[in-house]
């Protein structure tokens, strides 16, 4: 295999690796750690709401009224076909107030082990930008090598996914 062909093959191998890495980063925009941070925020919010609702019920009981501490109040969102009315109830505040943040957080964290770790957003954005820059360099180099082969009368097929802006860059603009 000629040196140019080897060079092109090496460049293409590096391009493949970067494409694979980029696809993985794009497929998971939120890292496991970020997901758990969002869950923490929700648990804190529900805990506040749940404790407030419990306090109201207990104060009502102290004033001689009923203590409906296990009654869910709010709006039910109805969906579905006529004749059936499945609905969603927000159990978050009541559950968190009764069970506590820590046990629920532990359960969620255990389930989250199945979520790939992913890359946190700042590092992810930075890495995507680096991949884009590396791909620009590699693809320009690949195109230069291909053009040299064509000048020598030994053409090499371009990749079907070669970028037009690289392949057709005006002379001196690449």
């Amino acid at each position, binding site marked *: 295999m000629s040196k140019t062909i080897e060079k092109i093959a090496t460049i293409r191998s590096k391009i493949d690796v970067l494409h694979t890495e980029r696809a993985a980063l794009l497929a998971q925009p939120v890292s496991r750690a970020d997901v758990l941070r969002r869950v923490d925020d929700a648990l804190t919010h529900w805990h506040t709401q749940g404790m407030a609702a419990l306090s109201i019920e207990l104060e009502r009981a102290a004033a001689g009224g009923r203590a409906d501490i296990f009654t869910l109040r709010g709006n039910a969102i109805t969906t579905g076909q006529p004749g059936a009315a499945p609905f969603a109830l927000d159990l978050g505040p009541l559950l968190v107030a009764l069970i506590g943040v820590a046990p629920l957080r532990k359960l969620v964290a255990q389930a989250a082990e199945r979520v790939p770790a992913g890359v946190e957003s700042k590092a992810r954005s930075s890495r995507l930008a680096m991949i884009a820059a590396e791909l620009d360099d590699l693809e320009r180099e690949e195109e230069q090598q291909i053009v040299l082969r064509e000048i020598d009368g030994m053409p090499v097929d371009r990749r079907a996914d*070669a970028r*037009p802006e690289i392949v057709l*860059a005006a*002379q001196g603009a690449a």
Partner: protein
Amino acid sequence: MGLDTDKLLDLRARHSDLRDHYLTVVEKAREARRDAARMHAEIAVDPEDDDARDLLALPVAELANQPAGILEKAGIDIRLVRRVIAAHAQADRIRQSAEDLAKRVRASQALIDRLNQYAGKFPEAVL
């Protein structure tokens, strides 16, 4: 960022040449297959000889595995059988070339389509 229109025209021409070459090879593959089939059909045997007719009706790959003694006993000229096997092998090689070219043409077409779509964004590229 400008557009190298000469390069686009050159790449279109290369794609066209590749496609034409592929079509030529496809036709050659057909001819080779026809020639091999004709050679096979032209091997003469006694029409009353069932064994000979059964042997000649075998697929080429099985016919190639028959011992020379079996063919001779059936009155089949082994040199003709060897020529038929060689003709089929040649037809297979040309067919494989056509299949390889088909992959290259598909990839080339995909690239040309994307290059043309990209070039369409440049109003000065009236091609």
